[in-house]
């Protein structure tokens, strides 16, 4: 088990290192001059311009040797300093992002957990039941082929614009003050529902199909046939098949995390939901390079943490990882 975690953590550390390096390299070696672009943009605000001119020369550190710039970058990073946002000058990028994170997590965490649970249950139930199978399969494939933002767009159009049941945009209405009062929480929940639902549905399709296919393979496996030959009830055979099929689905969850996060980002953009995705859109529209780079690092760290969580769960459910170095996501 120790070896298992050591290997995993080693890879995550290396990944973080690579990601930070990429984050540092790209602005420096891409064609074009980001400092000029930013200053051109910033010159719209005279009071900011001068401070930023000095700031950027410092941060991009064009006066010190290149290895020095790299070390400085790490140093600032480890102190939680990701630069200053241009869009929201002079707020630091870190605090801008930290304000958006709770919204993104509030969408992502329930959507991931619920869709994984419901999709697996449903897929397992549908497998090898002719009528259900024939409907679930096409619907599931269409759902998982749907671009996240398009399902969001459709839901927003149907349930907000046409039916008027849900609000179409924002994290909460403009006319209410954030507080812990029940009326505000209801308001918050009503704005949360549609983006959550579109994330949930797309993922649900994927998990249901995955589980359905896995169950069919498991039911073809020798141990299933053996159990059947012993006269075990169908329900028991299916339960064993389900338990075995959960492991690859867990691996699948780890592998899909990047795509899921991306899905959340674009869904937020559809609903102008004030999370990380919406922030990134604003950053792109305002040429706010520091904000984008900061968001990139936050996403990487989040995905690495989530991966690690899956690894821990894997150890809990797969005894093989506990005894030897084998198995694992």
């Amino acid at each position, binding site marked *: 088990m120790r070896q298992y975690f050591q290997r995993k953590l080693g890879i995550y550390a290396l990944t973080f290192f690579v990601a930070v390096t990429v984050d540092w390299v790209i602005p420096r070696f*891409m064609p074009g001059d980001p400092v000029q672009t930013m200053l051109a943009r910033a010159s719209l605000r005279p009071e900011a311009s001068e401070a930023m001119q000095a700031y950027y020369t410092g941060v991009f550190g064009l006066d010190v040797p290149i290895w020095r710039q790299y070390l400085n970058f790490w140093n600032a990073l480890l102190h939680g300093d990701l630069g200053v946002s241009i869009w929201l000058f002079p707020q630091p990028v870190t605090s801008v992002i930290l304000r958006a994170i709770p919204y993104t997590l509030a969408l992502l965490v329930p959507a991931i957990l619920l869709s994984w649970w419901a999709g697996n249950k449903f897929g397992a139930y549908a497998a090898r039941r002719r009528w259900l199978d024939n409907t679930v399969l096409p619907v599931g494939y269409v759902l998982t082929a749907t671009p996240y933002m*398009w399902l969001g767009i459709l839901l927003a159009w149907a349930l907000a614009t*046409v039916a008027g049941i849900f609000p179409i945009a924002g994290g909460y209405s403009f006319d209410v003050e954030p507080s812990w009062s029940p009326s505000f929480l209801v308001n918050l929940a009503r704005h949360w529902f549609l983006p959550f639902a579109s994330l949930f549905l797309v993922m649900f399709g994927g998990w249901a199909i*995955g589980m359905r296919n896995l169950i069919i393979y498991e039911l*073809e496996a020798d141990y299933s046939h053996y159990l059947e030959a012993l006269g075990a009830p169908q329900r028991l055979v299916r339960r064993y098949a389900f338990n075995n099929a959960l492991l690859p689905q867990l691996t699948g969850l780890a592998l899909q995390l990047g795509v899921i996060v*991306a899905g959340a*980002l674009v869904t937020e953009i559809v609903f102008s939901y004030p999370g990380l995705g919406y922030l990134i859109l604003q950053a792109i529209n305002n040429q706010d390079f520091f904000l984008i780079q900061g968001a990139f690092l936050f996403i990487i760290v989040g995905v690495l943490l989530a991966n690690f969580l899956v690894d821990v769960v894997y150890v809990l459910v797969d005894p093989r990882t506990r005894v030897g170095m084998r198995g694992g996501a």
Partner: protein
Amino acid sequence: MSVSDQEELAAATPAAAAATPVTVAELRASREALHFARRNRKLLLGAGVVLAFLVVAAVGPLLTDHGPNEYVGPPAQRPSADWWFGTTMFGQDVFAQFAHGLRSTFLVGLLGGGLAAVIGMTIGFTAGYRGGITDEVLNMVTNVVLVIPTLAVLLIIATYLRVRGVVPEAIFIAAFSWPWVARAIRAQTFSLRSRDFVDLARLSGAGGARIVFREIAPNMSSYLFMTFILLFGGAVLTAAMLDFIGLGPTDGMSLGLMMNNAVLWSALPLGMWWWFVPPGLGITMIVGALYIMNVGLDEVFNPKLREL
């Protein structure tokens, strides 16, 4: 498509039908596959839908005499005989945008999916066949790229590109979407490389590349093809997301960019459904058809799954 699908594909397809080396048996197998392929409804349906869209992509732009970004008609028109898919807020022809966008979609899918398949296969075969330190290094690289969220990297790369085209976009997508392929192929190569027929080839003095391409790869050709289909779909979806965020092609048109424009210019509250329904529907139908095609192919190549 969930990755577990890909994993279990890897587990199911490989060695069962494998051990037969080339020649007569091979020929019979391919004729048998063709026999089942022609009778597989999922495969035919999927292929039909993809082909239909391919035709629209090829012919559509020729039917209109203006570019996708030209302001040619009255703004915000509903679909009509004059404007088949209506017009945008600025009087651009939605059908022209759609047809041109389809071209980008197929280009990104073919190029992005194809390149990713090549990279994944090269690394997977090399790691699996060579083993040892080569395998260790390649495996580590694979695992690192696997964990990095593709869209996040593309995000910072695309941000710093002043001029963005569809081709570079496809190349960047390919550069970050190959890892699961490399992993699956490496695992299968491992299981195949110690087979008797591979040993025989090695004894007869064949080189590594020759053994991989002539002995090992043909035994998983069906899997390789299905991998490409999944990569195609993945590349299309990734490109759509990237374009939707606002990092799409700066001079061309794409389906993701159409949705981006629609949302940006309030098509949603205004209820201009003809602006945002076609691009999403196009992507969903193409990618969904590809996935269903894959299920059909799976049934064709894997006798266990055939419905009798």
